[in-house]
Protein backbone atom coordinates (compact mmCIF):
# COMPACT_ATOMS: atom_id res chain seq x y z
CA UNK A 1 0.00 0.00 0.00
CA UNK A 2 1.22 3.28 -0.90
CA UNK A 3 0.43 6.19 1.12
CA UNK A 4 0.12 9.26 -0.86
CA UNK A 5 0.73 12.46 0.84
CA UNK A 6 -0.94 15.35 -0.58
CA UNK A 7 1.04 18.30 -0.27
CA UNK A 8 -0.99 21.39 -0.51
CA UNK A 9 0.70 24.52 -1.32
CA UNK A 10 -0.56 27.13 0.98
CA UNK A 11 1.28 30.27 1.05
CA UNK A 12 3.05 31.06 -2.06
CA UNK A 13 4.37 34.42 -2.86
CA UNK A 14 6.31 35.67 -5.70
CA UNK A 15 8.14 38.85 -6.20
CA UNK A 16 8.58 40.72 -9.35
CA UNK A 17 12.10 41.88 -8.82
CA UNK A 18 15.45 40.86 -9.92
CA UNK A 19 17.04 38.28 -7.82
CA UNK A 20 19.87 39.63 -5.86
CA UNK A 21 21.82 38.38 -3.03
CA UNK A 22 22.77 40.08 0.09
CA UNK A 23 25.96 39.18 1.74
CA UNK A 24 28.69 40.55 3.80
CA UNK A 25 32.03 41.11 2.33
CA UNK A 26 35.12 41.18 4.34
CA UNK A 27 38.37 42.21 2.90
CA UNK A 28 41.18 39.87 3.15
CA UNK A 29 43.27 40.49 6.12
CA UNK A 30 46.40 42.16 5.08
CA UNK A 31 49.08 41.31 7.48
CA UNK A 32 51.82 43.73 7.93
CA UNK A 33 54.91 43.33 9.85
CA UNK A 34 57.55 45.84 10.41
CA UNK A 35 61.02 44.66 10.05
CA UNK A 36 64.31 46.15 9.33
CA UNK A 37 66.14 45.58 6.16
CA UNK A 38 69.33 43.76 6.38
CA UNK A 39 72.00 45.57 4.54
CA UNK A 40 74.67 43.51 3.15
CA UNK A 41 77.10 44.65 0.70
CA UNK A 42 75.54 44.64 -2.59
CA UNK A 43 75.99 46.18 -5.89
CA UNK A 44 79.28 44.64 -6.52
CA UNK A 45 79.85 43.66 -10.13
CA UNK A 46 79.61 40.03 -10.99
CA UNK A 47 83.26 39.34 -11.16
CA UNK A 48 84.05 40.81 -7.81
CA UNK A 49 83.40 38.79 -4.74
CA UNK A 50 82.69 41.02 -1.76
CA UNK A 51 84.36 38.72 0.66
CA UNK A 52 87.61 38.58 -1.12
CA UNK A 53 89.66 41.44 0.12
CA UNK A 54 92.07 41.40 -2.75
CA UNK A 55 89.41 41.62 -5.35
CA UNK A 56 87.63 44.45 -3.60
CA UNK A 57 90.83 46.40 -3.18
CA UNK A 58 91.67 45.88 -6.84
CA UNK A 59 88.20 47.06 -7.81
CA UNK A 60 88.50 50.10 -5.68
CA UNK A 61 91.85 51.03 -7.05
CA UNK A 62 90.47 50.73 -10.55
CA UNK A 63 87.63 53.05 -9.73
CA UNK A 64 89.92 55.57 -8.19
CA UNK A 65 91.89 55.85 -11.34
CA UNK A 66 88.78 56.39 -13.37
CA UNK A 67 88.59 59.83 -14.96
CA UNK A 68 85.09 60.54 -13.93
CA UNK A 69 86.02 59.90 -10.43
CA UNK A 70 88.93 62.30 -10.51
CA UNK A 71 86.76 65.05 -11.85
CA UNK A 72 83.69 64.77 -9.79
CA UNK A 73 85.10 64.15 -6.37
CA UNK A 74 86.94 67.46 -6.04
CA UNK A 75 83.78 69.24 -7.08
CA UNK A 76 81.79 67.45 -4.48
CA UNK A 77 84.53 68.18 -2.06
CA UNK A 78 84.20 71.88 -2.59
CA UNK A 79 80.50 71.89 -1.94
CA UNK A 80 81.04 69.81 1.10
CA UNK A 81 83.71 72.04 2.52
CA UNK A 82 81.39 74.98 2.13
CA UNK A 83 78.71 73.26 4.19
CA UNK A 84 81.10 72.07 6.80
CA UNK A 85 82.38 75.55 7.28
CA UNK A 86 78.81 76.79 7.51
CA UNK A 87 78.21 74.35 10.31
CA UNK A 88 81.28 75.40 12.11
CA UNK A 89 80.51 79.07 11.80
CA UNK A 90 77.03 79.07 13.20
CA UNK A 91 75.09 76.66 15.31
CA UNK A 92 71.64 76.81 13.82
CA UNK A 93 70.04 74.94 16.63
CA UNK A 94 71.22 77.22 19.37
CA UNK A 95 68.54 78.57 21.68
CA UNK A 96 68.64 82.26 21.18
CA UNK A 97 65.96 83.50 23.55
CA UNK A 98 65.38 81.40 26.58
CA UNK A 99 61.72 81.54 27.48
CA UNK A 100 61.30 84.23 30.05
CA UNK A 101 58.22 83.85 32.13
CA UNK A 102 57.08 87.42 32.23
CA UNK A 103 54.02 86.77 30.15
CA UNK A 104 51.98 86.76 33.31
CA UNK A 105 51.98 90.48 33.63
CA UNK A 106 50.60 90.82 30.14
CA UNK A 107 47.71 88.44 30.51
CA UNK A 108 44.64 89.65 32.34
CA UNK A 109 43.79 87.90 35.58
CA UNK A 110 41.27 85.14 35.21
CA UNK A 111 39.62 82.40 37.13
CA UNK A 112 37.71 79.35 36.08
CA UNK A 113 35.33 77.09 37.91
CA UNK A 114 36.60 73.58 38.21
CA UNK A 115 33.88 71.84 40.14
CA UNK A 116 30.73 72.52 42.05
CA UNK A 117 29.84 70.35 45.01
CA UNK A 118 26.16 70.51 45.71
CA UNK A 119 24.29 69.59 48.85
CA UNK A 120 22.73 66.21 48.07
CA UNK A 121 19.73 66.86 50.28
CA UNK A 122 16.39 68.23 49.15
CA UNK A 123 16.38 71.08 51.59
CA UNK A 124 19.57 72.91 50.89
CA UNK A 125 21.57 74.24 53.77
CA UNK A 126 24.19 76.93 53.76
CA UNK A 127 27.82 75.97 53.53
CA UNK A 128 29.01 77.80 56.58
CA UNK A 129 32.58 76.65 56.70
CA UNK A 130 35.12 74.86 54.51
CA UNK A 131 38.39 73.27 55.38
CA UNK A 132 41.05 71.91 53.07
CA UNK A 133 42.72 68.61 53.72
CA UNK A 134 46.19 69.51 55.03
CA UNK A 135 48.05 66.96 52.93
CA UNK A 136 47.99 68.21 49.40
CA UNK A 137 44.51 69.62 49.50
CA UNK A 138 42.77 66.82 47.64
CA UNK A 139 39.78 66.79 49.91
CA UNK A 140 37.47 69.43 51.15
CA UNK A 141 35.40 69.27 54.31
CA UNK A 142 32.28 71.39 54.40
CA UNK A 143 30.09 72.29 57.35
CA UNK A 144 26.45 72.57 56.38
CA UNK A 145 23.86 74.23 58.54
CA UNK A 146 21.12 76.77 58.40
CA UNK A 147 21.97 79.97 60.15
CA UNK A 148 18.54 81.47 59.91
CA UNK A 149 17.12 82.35 63.24
CA UNK A 150 14.85 79.61 64.53
CA UNK A 151 14.17 77.66 61.38
CA UNK A 152 12.67 74.27 62.02
CA UNK A 153 15.55 71.92 62.49
CA UNK A 154 13.67 68.67 62.38
CA UNK A 155 13.24 68.63 58.62
CA UNK A 156 16.76 69.78 58.08
CA UNK A 157 19.36 67.16 57.48
CA UNK A 158 22.17 67.45 59.97
CA UNK A 159 24.94 65.89 57.99
CA UNK A 160 28.08 67.51 56.79
CA UNK A 161 30.31 66.14 54.10
CA UNK A 162 33.87 65.57 53.07
CA UNK A 163 34.32 65.81 49.32
CA UNK A 164 37.06 64.47 47.11
CA UNK A 165 37.70 67.39 44.78
CA UNK A 166 37.86 65.11 41.76
CA UNK A 167 34.39 63.70 42.35
CA UNK A 168 31.60 66.21 42.72
CA UNK A 169 28.87 63.65 42.34
CA UNK A 170 28.98 62.05 45.71
CA UNK A 171 30.60 63.13 48.93
CA UNK A 172 33.42 60.90 50.01
CA UNK A 173 32.34 60.77 53.61
CA UNK A 174 29.30 61.91 55.52
CA UNK A 175 29.75 63.28 58.99
CA UNK A 176 26.77 62.84 61.28
CA UNK A 177 26.83 65.22 64.22
CA UNK A 178 24.07 65.58 66.78
CA UNK A 179 23.33 69.06 65.54
CA UNK A 180 24.29 70.75 62.27
CA UNK A 181 27.89 71.82 62.06
CA UNK A 182 28.63 75.50 61.79
CA UNK A 183 32.36 75.18 61.55
CA UNK A 184 34.78 72.42 60.73
CA UNK A 185 38.52 72.14 60.66
CA UNK A 186 41.02 69.49 59.66
CA UNK A 187 43.86 68.85 62.06
CA UNK A 188 46.96 70.14 60.29
CA UNK A 189 49.06 67.58 62.12
CA UNK A 190 46.87 64.55 61.56
CA UNK A 191 44.88 64.64 58.33
CA UNK A 192 42.56 61.91 59.48
CA UNK A 193 41.06 63.90 62.27
CA UNK A 194 38.66 66.79 62.18
CA UNK A 195 36.98 68.89 64.77
CA UNK A 196 33.71 70.69 64.31
CA UNK A 197 31.53 73.10 66.20
CA UNK A 198 27.79 72.61 66.13
CA UNK A 199 24.75 74.78 66.15
CA UNK A 200 23.98 73.64 69.66
CA UNK A 201 27.32 74.87 70.95
CA UNK A 202 28.99 71.51 71.25
CA UNK A 203 32.29 70.39 69.85
CA UNK A 204 32.60 67.11 68.03
CA UNK A 205 35.71 65.23 67.06
CA UNK A 206 35.91 62.84 64.12
CA UNK A 207 38.42 60.36 62.89
CA UNK A 208 37.78 59.59 59.23
CA UNK A 209 39.08 56.11 59.68
CA UNK A 210 36.41 55.42 62.25
CA UNK A 211 33.34 56.36 60.24
CA UNK A 212 30.68 58.99 60.21
CA UNK A 213 29.88 59.24 63.88
CA UNK A 214 31.94 61.56 65.98
CA UNK A 215 34.49 59.80 68.12
CA UNK A 216 34.05 62.33 70.90
CA UNK A 217 31.42 64.90 71.67
CA UNK A 218 31.50 67.58 74.29
CA UNK A 219 28.80 67.65 76.90
CA UNK A 220 26.01 70.16 76.51
CA UNK A 221 26.45 71.66 79.96
CA UNK A 222 30.03 72.62 79.49
CA UNK A 223 29.92 73.76 75.91
CA UNK A 224 28.93 77.01 74.38
CA UNK A 225 25.42 78.24 74.68
CA UNK A 226 25.25 79.56 71.18
CA UNK A 227 26.39 78.14 67.87
CA UNK A 228 30.13 77.67 67.67
CA UNK A 229 31.23 79.93 64.87
CA UNK A 230 34.87 79.09 64.67
CA UNK A 231 37.19 76.42 65.87
CA UNK A 232 40.93 76.29 65.28
CA UNK A 233 43.52 73.67 66.10
CA UNK A 234 46.36 74.80 68.28
CA UNK A 235 50.02 74.14 68.02
CA UNK A 236 50.83 71.87 70.91
CA UNK A 237 52.97 68.91 71.78
CA UNK A 238 50.13 66.47 71.74
CA UNK A 239 48.52 67.93 68.63
CA UNK A 240 45.11 67.50 70.20
CA UNK A 241 44.31 70.99 71.37
CA UNK A 242 41.82 73.30 69.80
CA UNK A 243 39.94 76.42 70.76
CA UNK A 244 36.52 77.60 69.81
CA UNK A 245 34.54 80.81 69.81
CA UNK A 246 30.86 81.51 69.96
CA UNK A 247 28.44 84.38 70.18
CA UNK A 248 27.77 83.50 73.79
CA UNK A 249 30.82 85.58 74.57
CA UNK A 250 33.22 82.81 75.45
CA UNK A 251 36.34 81.36 73.99
CA UNK A 252 36.90 77.81 75.15
CA UNK A 253 39.98 75.64 74.93
CA UNK A 254 39.63 71.92 74.48
CA UNK A 255 41.67 68.77 74.47
CA UNK A 256 39.99 66.56 71.89
CA UNK A 257 40.79 63.41 73.75
CA UNK A 258 38.55 64.50 76.56
CA UNK A 259 35.78 66.70 75.33
CA UNK A 260 33.63 66.45 78.42
CA UNK A 261 34.98 69.70 79.72
CA UNK A 262 36.94 72.55 78.25
CA UNK A 263 40.48 72.96 79.56
CA UNK A 264 40.25 76.71 79.74
CA UNK A 265 37.71 79.42 79.42
CA UNK A 266 37.82 83.08 78.57
CA UNK A 267 34.96 85.50 78.70
CA UNK A 268 35.22 88.32 76.21
CA UNK A 269 34.26 91.10 78.52
CA UNK A 270 35.71 94.40 77.43
CA UNK A 271 35.39 95.58 81.00
CA UNK A 272 37.84 92.80 81.85
CA UNK A 273 35.72 91.50 84.66
CA UNK A 274 34.69 88.22 83.16
CA UNK A 275 31.11 89.33 83.17
CA UNK A 276 29.17 87.19 80.74
CA UNK A 277 26.36 89.71 80.55
CA UNK A 278 28.54 92.29 78.95
CA UNK A 279 30.57 89.92 76.87
CA UNK A 280 30.99 90.48 73.21
CA UNK A 281 29.82 87.70 70.95
CA UNK A 282 32.66 86.16 69.02
CA UNK A 283 32.27 85.06 65.47
CA UNK A 284 35.76 84.48 64.29
CA UNK A 285 39.17 83.59 65.58
CA UNK A 286 42.66 84.05 64.36
CA UNK A 287 45.60 82.01 65.39
CA UNK A 288 49.06 81.80 63.94
CA UNK A 289 51.07 78.70 64.89
CA UNK A 290 54.27 80.75 64.89
CA UNK A 291 52.87 82.97 67.65
CA UNK A 292 51.24 80.41 69.89
CA UNK A 293 50.44 82.62 72.82
CA UNK A 294 48.61 85.30 70.93
CA UNK A 295 45.28 85.07 69.23
CA UNK A 296 42.65 87.42 67.98
CA UNK A 297 38.88 87.36 68.14
CA UNK A 298 36.46 89.11 65.85
CA UNK A 299 33.18 90.03 67.44
CA UNK A 300 29.61 90.66 66.47
CA UNK A 301 29.91 94.20 67.67
CA UNK A 302 32.55 95.04 65.12
CA UNK A 303 35.46 95.03 67.52
CA UNK A 304 38.57 92.93 67.08
CA UNK A 305 40.19 91.82 70.30
CA UNK A 306 43.80 90.85 70.54
CA UNK A 307 44.44 88.43 73.34
CA UNK A 308 47.29 86.80 75.08
CA UNK A 309 46.68 83.32 76.32
CA UNK A 310 49.57 83.25 78.69
CA UNK A 311 48.59 86.28 80.72
CA UNK A 312 48.43 85.73 84.45
CA UNK A 313 45.03 87.17 85.18
CA UNK A 314 41.95 86.99 83.03
CA UNK A 315 41.88 90.74 82.92
CA UNK A 316 45.22 90.86 81.23
CA UNK A 317 44.24 88.30 78.70
CA UNK A 318 42.47 90.90 76.61
CA UNK A 319 45.37 92.96 75.43
CA UNK A 320 43.83 95.52 73.14
CA UNK A 321 40.98 96.25 70.83
CA UNK A 322 40.73 97.42 67.29
CA UNK A 323 37.58 99.18 66.36
CA UNK A 324 36.49 100.18 62.94
CA UNK A 325 33.84 97.92 61.59
CA UNK A 326 30.20 98.86 61.65
CA UNK A 327 28.99 95.33 61.84
CA UNK A 328 30.10 91.84 62.80
CA UNK A 329 33.64 90.98 61.87
CA UNK A 330 33.20 87.90 59.76
CA UNK A 331 36.78 87.20 58.90
CA UNK A 332 40.11 87.73 60.50
CA UNK A 333 43.35 86.62 58.93
CA UNK A 334 46.98 87.49 59.44
CA UNK A 335 49.13 88.03 56.40
CA UNK A 336 51.25 84.89 56.11
CA UNK A 337 54.27 86.92 54.99
CA UNK A 338 53.88 89.91 57.27
CA UNK A 339 52.19 88.61 60.40
CA UNK A 340 52.00 92.04 61.95
CA UNK A 341 49.36 92.94 59.43
CA UNK A 342 45.98 91.33 59.48
CA UNK A 343 42.93 91.50 57.34
CA UNK A 344 39.39 91.85 58.63
CA UNK A 345 36.16 91.68 56.72
CA UNK A 346 32.88 92.92 57.99
CA UNK A 347 30.05 95.17 56.97
CA UNK A 348 30.73 96.41 53.46
CA UNK A 349 34.48 96.71 53.40
CA UNK A 350 37.64 94.81 54.11
CA UNK A 351 40.28 96.46 56.26
CA UNK A 352 43.94 95.84 56.71
CA UNK A 353 45.39 96.60 60.11
CA UNK A 354 48.82 96.81 61.56
CA UNK A 355 49.12 95.38 65.03
CA UNK A 356 50.85 98.41 66.39
CA UNK A 357 48.37 100.94 65.12
CA UNK A 358 45.25 100.64 67.20
CA UNK A 359 43.24 103.64 66.21
CA UNK A 360 42.30 102.60 62.79
CA UNK A 361 43.09 100.35 59.93
CA UNK A 362 46.02 101.22 57.73
CA UNK A 363 44.20 100.39 54.54
CA UNK A 364 40.65 99.73 53.64
CA UNK A 365 38.68 98.99 50.53
CA UNK A 366 35.91 101.12 49.22
CA UNK A 367 32.48 100.31 50.53
CA UNK A 368 31.09 97.60 48.33
CA UNK A 369 27.57 97.18 47.08
CA UNK A 370 26.92 94.21 49.27
CA UNK A 371 27.94 92.76 52.56
CA UNK A 372 31.27 90.99 52.90
CA UNK A 373 31.03 87.59 54.45
CA UNK A 374 34.55 86.21 54.40
CA UNK A 375 38.09 87.11 53.43
CA UNK A 376 41.51 85.56 53.46
CA UNK A 377 45.04 86.24 52.27
CA UNK A 378 46.63 84.29 49.48
CA UNK A 379 49.24 81.91 50.89
CA UNK A 380 51.61 82.55 48.00
CA UNK A 381 51.32 86.22 47.18
CA UNK A 382 51.68 88.64 50.06
CA UNK A 383 49.65 91.39 48.46
CA UNK A 384 46.68 89.36 47.27
CA UNK A 385 43.56 88.62 49.26
CA UNK A 386 40.14 87.22 48.45
CA UNK A 387 36.75 88.39 49.66
CA UNK A 388 33.34 86.78 49.44
CA UNK A 389 30.20 88.85 49.24
CA UNK A 390 26.48 88.49 49.73
CA UNK A 391 25.77 89.04 46.04
CA UNK A 392 27.61 85.85 45.16
CA UNK A 393 30.73 87.57 43.94
CA UNK A 394 34.24 86.58 44.87
CA UNK A 395 36.72 89.44 44.60
CA UNK A 396 40.44 89.16 44.30
CA UNK A 397 42.30 92.22 45.57
CA UNK A 398 45.93 93.01 44.89
CA UNK A 399 46.90 95.95 47.00
CA UNK A 400 50.09 96.57 45.07
CA UNK A 401 48.16 96.83 41.86
CA UNK A 402 44.91 98.59 42.67
CA UNK A 403 43.61 99.67 46.05
CA UNK A 404 40.20 100.89 45.21
CA UNK A 405 38.84 98.12 43.13
CA UNK A 406 39.31 94.41 43.07
CA UNK A 407 41.80 93.13 40.53
CA UNK A 408 39.32 90.45 39.57
CA UNK A 409 35.67 89.93 40.34
CA UNK A 410 34.16 86.54 39.75
CA UNK A 411 30.44 86.00 39.94
CA UNK A 412 30.34 82.57 41.45
CA UNK A 413 26.60 82.11 41.88
CA UNK A 414 23.39 83.96 42.45
CA UNK A 415 23.13 83.15 46.11
CA UNK A 416 25.16 84.84 48.81
CA UNK A 417 28.58 83.38 49.40
CA UNK A 418 29.19 82.54 53.01
CA UNK A 419 32.68 81.26 53.27
CA UNK A 420 35.93 81.12 51.44
CA UNK A 421 39.04 79.05 51.77
CA UNK A 422 42.25 79.14 49.78
CA UNK A 423 44.18 75.96 49.26
CA UNK A 424 47.83 76.03 50.29
CA UNK A 425 49.04 76.14 46.70
CA UNK A 426 47.33 79.48 46.27
CA UNK A 427 45.70 78.45 43.02
CA UNK A 428 42.48 76.84 44.14
CA UNK A 429 39.82 78.59 46.15
CA UNK A 430 36.73 76.92 47.52
CA UNK A 431 33.73 79.05 48.36
CA UNK A 432 30.47 78.00 49.89
CA UNK A 433 27.08 79.51 49.22
CA UNK A 434 23.75 79.77 50.89
CA UNK A 435 22.27 77.28 48.44
CA UNK A 436 24.52 74.53 49.72
CA UNK A 437 26.94 74.48 46.85
CA UNK A 438 30.66 74.70 47.29
CA UNK A 439 32.42 75.94 44.18
CA UNK A 440 36.03 75.26 43.40
CA UNK A 441 37.77 77.97 41.40
CA UNK A 442 41.20 77.96 39.88
CA UNK A 443 43.04 81.22 39.39
CA UNK A 444 45.49 82.08 36.68
CA UNK A 445 49.17 81.82 37.42
CA UNK A 446 49.56 85.58 37.59
CA UNK A 447 47.56 85.64 40.79
CA UNK A 448 49.04 82.55 42.30
CA UNK A 449 52.77 82.80 41.75
CA UNK A 450 55.06 84.99 43.74
CA UNK A 451 56.24 87.99 41.78
CA UNK A 452 59.74 89.29 42.30
CA UNK A 453 59.03 92.60 43.96
CA UNK A 454 56.01 91.61 46.01
CA UNK A 455 57.66 91.27 49.34
CA UNK A 456 59.80 94.37 49.19
CA UNK A 457 56.98 96.57 48.00
CA UNK A 458 54.59 95.28 50.56
CA UNK A 459 57.16 95.68 53.30
CA UNK A 460 57.47 99.30 52.32
CA UNK A 461 53.75 99.74 52.51
CA UNK A 462 53.25 97.96 55.79
CA UNK A 463 56.13 99.48 57.65
CA UNK A 464 55.20 103.02 56.86
CA UNK A 465 55.01 105.38 59.74
CA UNK A 466 51.64 105.58 61.34
CA UNK A 467 50.87 109.19 60.59
CA UNK A 468 52.08 108.89 57.06
CA UNK A 469 50.01 105.83 56.52
CA UNK A 470 46.88 107.32 57.87
CA UNK A 471 47.32 110.53 55.99
CA UNK A 472 48.24 108.66 52.82
CA UNK A 473 45.16 106.56 53.04
CA UNK A 474 43.05 109.54 53.85
CA UNK A 475 44.47 111.29 50.83
CA UNK A 476 43.92 108.24 48.66
CA UNK A 477 40.32 108.02 49.67
CA UNK A 478 39.96 111.71 49.24
CA UNK A 479 41.33 111.53 45.74
CA UNK A 480 38.96 108.77 44.80
CA UNK A 481 36.11 110.61 46.46
CA UNK A 482 37.31 113.75 44.79
CA UNK A 483 37.01 112.14 41.42
CA UNK A 484 33.51 111.21 42.31
CA UNK A 485 32.96 114.72 43.56
CA UNK A 486 34.17 116.12 40.28
CA UNK A 487 31.59 114.08 38.49
CA UNK A 488 29.00 115.30 40.93
CA UNK A 489 30.01 118.88 40.22
CA UNK A 490 29.54 118.33 36.54
CA UNK A 491 26.15 116.81 37.15
CA UNK A 492 25.21 119.72 39.30
CA UNK A 493 26.17 122.35 36.77
CA UNK A 494 24.28 120.48 34.15
CA UNK A 495 21.25 120.23 36.37
CA UNK A 496 21.45 123.94 37.08
CA UNK A 497 21.65 124.74 33.40
CA UNK A 498 18.68 122.55 32.72
CA UNK A 499 16.74 124.21 35.49
CA UNK A 500 17.45 127.71 34.27
CA UNK A 501 16.65 126.89 30.71
CA UNK A 502 13.31 125.40 31.76
CA UNK A 503 12.56 128.46 33.87
CA UNK A 504 13.41 130.79 31.03
CA UNK A 505 11.25 128.83 28.62
CA UNK A 506 8.34 129.08 31.06
CA UNK A 507 8.82 132.81 31.48
CA UNK A 508 8.87 133.29 27.75
CA UNK A 509 5.71 131.31 27.43
CA UNK A 510 4.03 133.43 30.09
CA UNK A 511 5.02 136.59 28.23
CA UNK A 512 3.43 135.26 25.10
CA UNK A 513 0.30 134.09 26.85
CA UNK A 514 -1.22 137.53 27.78
CA UNK A 515 -1.31 138.30 24.07
CA UNK A 516 -3.29 135.11 23.52
CA UNK A 517 -5.76 135.86 26.32
CA UNK A 518 -6.26 139.38 25.03
CA UNK A 519 -6.84 137.97 21.63
CA UNK A 520 -9.50 135.66 23.06
CA UNK A 521 -11.05 138.54 24.96
CA UNK A 522 -11.07 140.50 21.79
CA UNK A 523 -12.97 137.75 20.11
CA UNK A 524 -15.60 137.84 22.76
Amino acid sequence: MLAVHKQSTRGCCSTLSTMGSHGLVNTERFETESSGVNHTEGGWPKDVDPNEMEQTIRFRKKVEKDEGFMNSIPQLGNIMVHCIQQNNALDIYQEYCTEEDDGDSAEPPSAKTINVFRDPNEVKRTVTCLSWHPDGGKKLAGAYSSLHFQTSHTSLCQDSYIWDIENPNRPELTLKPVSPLVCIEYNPKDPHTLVGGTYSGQIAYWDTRRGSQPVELSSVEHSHRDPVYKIIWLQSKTGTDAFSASTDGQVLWWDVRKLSEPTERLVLDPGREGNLERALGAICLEYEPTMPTKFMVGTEQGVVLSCNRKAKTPAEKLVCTYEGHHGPVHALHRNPFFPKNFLTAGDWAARIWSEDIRDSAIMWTRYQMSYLTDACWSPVRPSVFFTAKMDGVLDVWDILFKQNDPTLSVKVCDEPLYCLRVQDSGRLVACGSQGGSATLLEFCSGLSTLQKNDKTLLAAVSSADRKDVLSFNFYLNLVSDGLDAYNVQQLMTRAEDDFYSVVEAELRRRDEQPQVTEHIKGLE
Partner: protein
Amino acid sequence: MIQSQKGVQGVVIANSEGIPIKSTLDNSSTVQYAGLIHQLLLKARSTVRDIDPQNDLTFLRVRSKKNEIMIAPDKDYFLIVIQNPSD
Protein backbone atom coordinates in the same frame (compact mmCIF):
# COMPACT_ATOMS: atom_id res chain seq x y z
CA MET B 1 91.58 67.94 2.75
CA ILE B 2 88.07 67.66 4.14
CA GLN B 3 89.24 65.68 7.07
CA SER B 4 91.29 68.51 8.37
CA GLN B 5 88.17 70.64 8.85
CA LYS B 6 86.91 71.19 12.34
CA GLY B 7 84.47 68.62 13.68
CA VAL B 8 84.71 66.16 10.79
CA GLN B 9 84.38 62.64 12.10
CA GLY B 10 84.52 60.66 8.88
CA VAL B 11 84.47 60.82 5.12
CA VAL B 12 83.14 58.13 2.77
CA ILE B 13 83.20 58.16 -1.01
CA ALA B 14 80.86 55.71 -2.71
CA ASN B 15 79.82 55.08 -6.26
CA SER B 16 76.38 55.15 -7.73
CA GLU B 17 75.80 51.55 -6.78
CA GLY B 18 76.54 52.07 -3.16
CA ILE B 19 79.98 50.52 -3.12
CA PRO B 20 82.32 52.40 -0.89
CA ILE B 21 85.45 53.44 -2.71
CA LYS B 22 87.31 55.33 -0.09
CA SER B 23 86.69 55.86 3.56
CA THR B 24 88.27 57.11 6.75
CA LEU B 25 86.00 55.01 8.94
CA ASP B 26 86.27 51.35 9.75
CA ASN B 27 84.96 48.79 7.33
CA SER B 28 81.68 47.91 8.93
CA SER B 29 80.62 51.53 9.46
CA THR B 30 81.67 52.37 5.91
CA VAL B 31 79.57 49.62 4.49
CA GLN B 32 76.65 50.60 6.62
CA TYR B 33 76.82 54.26 5.73
CA ALA B 34 77.33 53.60 2.07
CA GLY B 35 74.46 51.17 1.78
CA LEU B 36 71.95 53.09 3.87
CA ILE B 37 72.76 56.50 2.51
CA HIS B 38 72.63 55.26 -1.03
CA GLN B 39 69.00 54.26 -0.47
CA LEU B 40 68.22 57.59 1.16
CA LEU B 41 69.86 59.41 -1.69
CA LEU B 42 67.85 57.62 -4.31
CA LYS B 43 64.64 58.38 -2.43
CA ALA B 44 65.53 62.02 -1.91
CA ARG B 45 66.54 62.49 -5.52
CA SER B 46 63.35 60.89 -6.79
CA THR B 47 61.32 63.06 -4.41
CA VAL B 48 62.86 66.25 -5.71
CA ARG B 49 62.50 65.09 -9.31
CA ASP B 50 58.87 64.08 -8.78
CA ILE B 51 57.89 67.44 -7.36
CA ASP B 52 59.60 69.28 -10.18
CA PRO B 53 61.13 67.34 -13.02
CA GLN B 54 63.39 70.24 -13.88
CA ASN B 55 64.86 70.16 -10.43
CA ASP B 56 67.58 67.95 -9.12
CA LEU B 57 69.06 67.15 -5.76
CA THR B 58 72.24 69.06 -5.06
CA PHE B 59 72.90 68.42 -1.42
CA LEU B 60 71.38 66.49 1.45
CA ARG B 61 71.89 67.19 5.13
CA VAL B 62 70.68 64.87 7.85
CA ARG B 63 70.91 66.51 11.24
CA SER B 64 70.70 64.21 14.21
CA LYS B 65 71.15 64.65 17.89
CA LYS B 66 74.73 63.61 17.89
CA ASN B 67 76.04 64.76 14.55
CA GLU B 68 75.28 65.81 11.04
CA ILE B 69 75.55 63.64 7.96
CA MET B 70 76.17 65.62 4.78
CA ILE B 71 75.76 64.00 1.42
CA ALA B 72 76.91 65.54 -1.84
CA PRO B 73 75.57 63.51 -4.77
CA ASP B 74 76.89 63.40 -8.24
CA LYS B 75 76.15 61.53 -11.42
CA ASP B 76 78.34 58.59 -10.63
CA TYR B 77 79.51 59.03 -7.10
CA PHE B 78 78.51 60.53 -3.83
CA LEU B 79 80.44 61.97 -0.96
CA ILE B 80 79.42 61.46 2.63
CA VAL B 81 80.82 63.51 5.48
CA ILE B 82 79.94 63.02 9.11
CA GLN B 83 80.49 66.14 11.15
CA ASN B 84 79.92 66.97 14.75
CA PRO B 85 78.89 70.59 14.73
CA SER B 86 78.76 73.07 17.60
CA ASP B 87 81.66 71.78 19.61
